[in-house]
Structure formats: C-alpha cells, structure tokens
C-alpha cells in the first residue's frame, strides 16, 4: 500500500485513541441493508511494473501522430510542443494544487492565470477573459447562455459551418431553457451564407454565432456580420477552434465581436484522444458580470504588495447558487497553464511565424492536391491550415485506406457529419507535416487508390 502510509499498527493506535475496537465500528451508521455484502468484482491489484507494462500494452494498440503522418484536424490539432512546456507544467506545486481558494498559498497559479487572461485578451482582441472553460464546444454553449442572460432573447443563429459536435453540444445545453437554434447553410466558397444569416436575424435574435476559420477551414467575413447583428440588437459570438490562426488572422475583436470563445488545445496541450482540452472565453468588458467561469484579479496585500485573487465570485454558484452565471467549478487550469507557457515561448514573433508556417504548408498541400486528377478543392474561400477536398475517383474511405497502408492518416471523412459532403475529406496541414510527408500524401492520393 505505497499510497496509504498508515500501517495496521498505526491504525490500531488511532482506533484506540478514538476508543473503538475496529474500523468497522466507524461504519456503524451505514445500515446493514445498505452495505455491499461482497468484495467488488474488479481485477486484482497490480504492481507498478505490472501496471506500466499493462498500460504500455494498451497504448501500443493505438496509433499516434508520432509514429504516423497525420492530416487530421477538425478541432484537434497536432502542433509541436516545446520540451519546456511539460517540464514546467508538471512541476508538482502546480499540478497537485486545488483551485486557488486560499490566495496566500496559490500566488503561482493565480499569477499564471492572470497572465493567461491577458494573453487571451491580446489574441482575441477582447477586453476581458476568464480563467478557462472545459473545451471549445462547451465554451460556445456557455457563450449562448451568456448572450441570453444579457438580452433575454431566445433565438440564436447557428451556421452549419460551425463544428458539428459544437452544434450538438449547444443544442444539448440550451434547449432546456427554451432557446432556439436556427441553422444557416454555407456557400460554394465554404463560407456561411451571409444573406441567409441576414434573413434569419430579427429583433428576437439573441445572438449570431460564427466560427472562423470555420469547420471547413474557411475564414469568415466577420465585419459585415457584426454590423448586421448589432443593428438587430443581437450579439456576435465568434468561435475559434484553431487558435494558431490568431497569429496571422485579424482578431475577432477588431471585427466587432461581442464574445469570443474557442478551443485552446493547439497551445501546449497534447491531442490526448480528445481531452482534456481548453475552452477559452473572452468578451467586451461591458458584459463582464454576465460572464461564466472563474476570474483572477490583481489586488494588493496588507503591506501594499501586489497579489492575485479569485474575484467577482458573486457571479458564481457558491454565492448565488441557482442564480449563478454557470455551474462551473473545476475548469481546465493546468491546460491554461500549458497554453500560457507555450505562448510565452512562442511570443510575439514566434506565434506569427508559426501561423505563417501553417498557412504556407497548407497552401502548398492545397495547390499540390488541386493538381491531382483524382481530387479537387471543394470550396474556393480563403483557408488557414485546413481545407476540403472532393474525391473524384473512388470514395474518401478508399482513399484513406490507401493512405493508411503507407502509414499516413488521411483527412476526416465529411460524410460522417454532412451527407451532402460524403465525397469529401477535410485535410489539415500543420508545421508537424514536413514537405516530404505532404508529397507522400499527394502522391498516394493521386495514385487513384
């Protein structure tokens, strides 16, 4: 029992001090009929060696992006993580701490979150940001709930070019409160049909949601949308699933967004088979008190020294209970720390360079693929590091099988989410894909099987 220090003898002493004969007596308040009369039916304990071996066996049944070339994106991005990130994030003072309820013992966590909030504001071009949400999808759902708290309206415009799983999460989260989500189609540019958005907006519209780059990798035109939404008294919510784009693409804040949310996994967090990821959440300062989640603020101590605390807790559930802005308690603090470290390392020049590298690599792949006879680009709009390819010979599934035979994990088969795009693949290219890998991808895609 290496994790339970007390031995039988230690326990004996404690039982004696308490004045009971056995630990059984301490459970006397659990009526016999509520007891489990048998041992749990679980596998027997394992030694550390045995566990390591067993876990390695399971892990080895999975493929990973270290051992395969991968062109998967769609909300989860394979970016390089400098060694310094995990070195710092796995300092046990950070990862074995709880939510910083006692600021005097938590200045490390608190200052790092304050820095994280600042970075998110800088990236999104917004005025305030919270300490993190579960992931991009739930952050988007919370953004809709926030917009509803702000203007009390019930209709939300939700384009089809938003990540399909994000849309499902929004439906699941908001439907109980009577909110209605109106879908809007995309154009042949792969962008949301702004005319249709305009037509869908009315004075009942709570918010317009837009993702950019959207699920097809296409950059949306936010400025017009902001104007249209604001005219109708609705809020513009911008979601960003690939935040590396912030390095080269104009920020949503500059385009007039009211709330900007998204997925921060791309910064310092591993793919982790889908989680934990990092929901980021920023808004205009005017809406601060309607914002969900934790906030860290700077203040001073009794000696006048600067220090950091959790603040504006009156919005939260442990003060307002059912009137809280959300029920979020534990969030993704360590993921936010990883993002903060990674962004600090990248810095002003590095983030731009990284974004540019992604843009150029994807452009190179796009051009090479568009030259193939077996494929064509499905959409014409400007893209960042993802784009949709229509397979003209065979099926996307066949093409992916051919790639896999060469240890290449191809694109996401879009038929899974869009029946009308069942002949399409969503291909993502990052700095992790060398030119060699891209050439191998194209060669195999072009070979017709």
């Amino acid at each position: 029992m290496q994790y339970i220090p007390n031995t039988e003898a230690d326990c004996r002493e404690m039982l004696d001090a308490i004045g009971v004969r056995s630990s059984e007596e301490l459970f006397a308040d659990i009526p016999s009929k509520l007891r489990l009369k048998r041992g749990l039916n679980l596998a027997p304990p394992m030694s550390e060696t045995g566990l390591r071996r067993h876990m390695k066996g399971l892990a080895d049944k999975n493929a990973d992006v270290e051992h395969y070339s991968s062109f998967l994106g769609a909300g989860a991005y394979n970016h390089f993580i400098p060694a310094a990130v995990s070195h710092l994030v796995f300092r046990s003072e950070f990862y074995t701490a709880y939510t910083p309820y006692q600021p005097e013992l938590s200045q490390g966590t608190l200052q790092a979150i304050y820095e994280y909030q600042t970075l998110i504001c800088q990236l999104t071009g917004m005025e305030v940001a919270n300490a993190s949400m579960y992931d991009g999808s739930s952050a988007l759902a919370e953004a809709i709930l926030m917009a509803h708290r702000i203007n009390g309206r019930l209709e939300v415009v939700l384009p089809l070019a938003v990540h399909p799983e994000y849309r499902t999460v929004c439906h699941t989260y908001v439907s109980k409160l009577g909110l209605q989500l109106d879908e809007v189609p995309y154009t042949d540019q792969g962008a949301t049909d702004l005319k249709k958005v305009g037509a869908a907006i009315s004075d009942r519209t709570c918010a317009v949601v837009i993702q950019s780059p959207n699920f097809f990798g296409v950059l949306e035109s936010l400025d017009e949308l902001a104007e249209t939404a604001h005219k109708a008294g609705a809020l513009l919510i911008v979601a960003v699933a690939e935040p590396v784009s912030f390095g080269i693409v104009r920020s949503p804040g500059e385009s007039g967004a009211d709330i900007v949310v998204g997925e921060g996994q791309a910064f310092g967090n591993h793919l982790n088979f889908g989680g934990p990821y990092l929901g980021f959440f920023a808004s205009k300062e005017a809406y601060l008190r309607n914002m969900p989640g934790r906030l860290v603020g700077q203040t001073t101590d009794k000696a006048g020294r600067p220090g950091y605390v959790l603040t504006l807790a009156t919005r939260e559930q442990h003060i307002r209970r059912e009137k809280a802005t959300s029920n979020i308690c534990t969030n993704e603090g360590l993921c936010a720390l990883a993002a903060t470290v990674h962004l600090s390392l990248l810095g002003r020049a590095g983030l731009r360079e990284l974004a540019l590298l992604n843009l150029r690599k994807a452009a190179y792949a796009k051009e090479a693929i568009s030259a193939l006879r077996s494929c064509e680009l499905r959409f014409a709009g400007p893209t960042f590091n993802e784009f949709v390819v229509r397979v003209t010979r065979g099926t996307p599934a066949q093409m992916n099988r051919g790639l896999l035979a060469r240890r290449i994990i191809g694109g996401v088969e879009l038929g899974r989410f869009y029946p009308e795009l069942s002949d399409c693949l969503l291909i993502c290219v990052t700095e992790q894909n060398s030119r060699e890998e891209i050439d191998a991808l194209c060669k195999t895609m072009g070979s017709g099987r």
Partner: protein
Amino acid sequence: FNEPLLFDQGSKGRVGCTLPECDVPELKPERLLPRKLLRRDIPGFPELSEVEVVRHFTRLSQHNYGVDLGFYPLGSCTMKYNPKINEEVWRLPGFSQAHPYQPQSLIQGALELMYELETFLAEISGMERVSLQPAAGAQGEILGMMLIRAYLESKGSPRKRVLIPDSSHGTNPASAAICGYQCVQIKSGPRGRIEPQAVADMMDEDVAAIMITNPNTLGLFEDQIADIAKIVHAKGGQVYCDGANLNAIIGISRPGDVGVDVLHFNMHKTFAVPHGGGGPGAGPVGLKAHLAPFIPIPVVEKKGKRFVLNEDLPSSIGRVRAFYGNFAALVRAYAYIRSLGPSGLRRVAEVAVLNANYIMNQLKDTYHLPYDKFCKHECVFSDARQLPHGVQTLDIAKRLMDYGFHPPTIYFPLIVRGAMMIEPTETESKETLDQFIAAMKRIAEEAERDPELVRSAPHKTKVSRLDEVKAARQPNLRWKGKAPRLP
C-alpha cells in the same frame, strides 16, 4: 521575491523556441489571404527567451502549495496523493498523441480502456451504465439532470422542481437551474441528515428529482437514503446522488444499491487524478437502465473482440462536449483502479474514514463540533469557541498556513456557521495528522492568549492577506501595459 509579469519582462525581438524551417515556398501572406483578413502584430505580446520563461514559471511554482508539499485537508475536495506512475502512463504516445478522429482500427487500446473503465465504475457504484463524457463533476451534474429531464419528458412531462438539501454542494442548485428547474431547499434534521418526512412533505408530481450528496457535506452518511428514494420514486421522481464524497464508502456501500438513479463521480477526487490547480478533472455519470436510452453519444461498445464507438442512439440527449471526455484524466483513474484492486479500494475508504475520525476525536475538546459521533471522510467544526476572543474561522485558516498546512474548506457547508470542513484522505500518515492536530490546538491557545497574532495571520507566506474587496470593486483582470511598445 516578487516575480514580475511575463509582460513586464523580456526585450524586443526575443523568442523562446525555434520552429522548423519552412520547407515549402515562402510566399508572402498577402498572396495567401485577403489583405483585410491579415493581422499585423499583437502589441504587448511576450518577447522572452526560453531561459526567462523557464525561470518565470519555476519561480511561480514555488509560490504555490500542492499535495506534494504537505497536508491539504480541503473538505469535500479529497486532496489525496497523486501517484507518479499514473502521471507517467497517461503520457505514453499511444494515449497522449492519439487524435480523436483516428480510424477505429487505430484506437482500439483507448476504446478498450474506456470500455473497461465504464465497467469498473458501474461495479463500484452499483449503476448500470456510465457516461465518461463530462469534463468535471459540475458538468456531470448538468448531464445527470439532463438525463432525468429527458427521461421524465419521455414519460410526458419534465416536471418543474428539484429538491436540494441545505447541506448540498454549491454547484447542485446551479446545475438544476441550467436544466430549467426551480430549486427547493430541504432542511437537514437535527442529526445533520435529511429526514424522510421532510422529503415526503415536499414531494409531489411536479418534483422531478432530489439531489442528495452522500456522504453529505457534514461528512455524515445519509442513513435513510433508501427510504427517501422510495418516497421520491413513489411519486415518479428520480434520485440524483452527488458522488463527490464517494471516497468514504468505496467498496462498502454502493449508491446504486440504495435507490440512486443517477450519480456523478469525480475522478480528481476519489480516483487520485491530480486537480491541476483548478482542473482538468473528469466527472463521469453513472445511471440506471431506464435512463440508458438518453445517454450522450458516442458510447463504446464491444463487438466480438473489437471495440466500436456507437453514435446511433436516437433518444440520446446529444453531447455535453466535443469528442469523448477528458481522456487523459480517465487513463489515470483507470490506472489507479488497476493498481489498488478491490481490496485496495476498500482500504482507501477505511483509512480515509479512520483518519477523519481521528482528527475529529482529537480536536473535539478544542473546537466546537456541531454534529457529533462518527463521521465518514471529513469532519466539520465551527469557530464558536474562538469567536468570543474575536478570532473567526478565516483567521484560524490563515494561521494554519504559518504552521505549514493548507487550511481546510471554510464557511461551508452553509448550515454550520463558521464551518471548518476537514478531509484528511487516506494518504496522510498518523504523524501528519498529529502535527496538524497539534497546530490546531496551538492556534486555539493563541486565540485566547494572543488573538491579534491569529487575526493578522498568515505571517510566513509570500504575501499577507489580500484585499479581496478592492479586487472586486476595481477589477483588474489583465495586464494593460503601454501597448504598443516602443519600436
């Protein structure tokens, strides 16, 4: 020493990491994107070398207290030791570097782990299915209430109200509210537990569910839970159990056997997943068969020897997050369960309860104990005896820091005025408990002898008490600096 903000360090042009060289044509961004979409710069963004970044966060880490440094008896948070082997295994490339949309043939290990973990959690809790999707306990609560709502809707009406005891966790009412329910509070009885009669008085066919925390936040087992469940079920309601305190009863009593319909687990409490200074955790939800049709998609199923993700559940409530949950946290929880096995898990509960009772017993002559006899995983004292000296719970908590301990949870549960909620967990030795007990006794003495010493604590931390009122009145939530910097 004070550590300046990232933004107040560095120098123009510094970078902290190298990127791979560009091996494709280096086209200008203007050739690749419309000019109006391009960003020029991010004023104020950090410009630091790797050295500076490493030093910054290394220093910040030393301004933090974690379980690896000492006793962290935050009640209801179950701050137990996080085994190091678990931190090693989740980082195996097959887990940490797998993309969620890989073909199913390439994720068989991940699916097997999830499938088995679901089985383990079902066995531990006595539930019939488990969704691993929620990212935290509070999201588990939302999911649980959504399942109840969906089930009741399928029976004709979602109903209107949810009963919540006054000793419940803070997130419970908010979770019910997000699902569109009104909350009605039930008062605890004189034994610190819910009385069946109180439930019977409130229960009608507009009540969707009762949300019970068991053991509750006083550290007491709700010994009448089976009767309460019967009352609720008789009127067609559902019983939700907040499983945050499962550590006390694992291997001893199963919520599913005593009438609970839905339960959330906290992987970062009971199953030793580190809390990360505020997440990520994971909050799977266990449910009875009648709720299974509404479970979020996708679910892992076994077909012969293969594991598959099934999204085809027509009555599913949908999803509470993208992909499949906080997988890396699930890996650690799985590893923990495999390490301990059935006997080890039961021992966890036994020692966790023994440790809490030992503290309760040793301190009950020094601090006011509102509810007596035996507790489960945690005990709750109040500051009633110290208040006459002008020393309150907050002061005692801050003074504990000077003795090298993290304070307990304070002012919670709300039903105890000036509560101190102490949860030692099973990973603390008798010696540590004795040191903590000694410190608590010394503080009680200090409160009598030199109350100002306690009131002005902490004295040994990096900062003294912080002005929280100022923080809330004049919110300063980000660095504003003087952007743009000089060229």
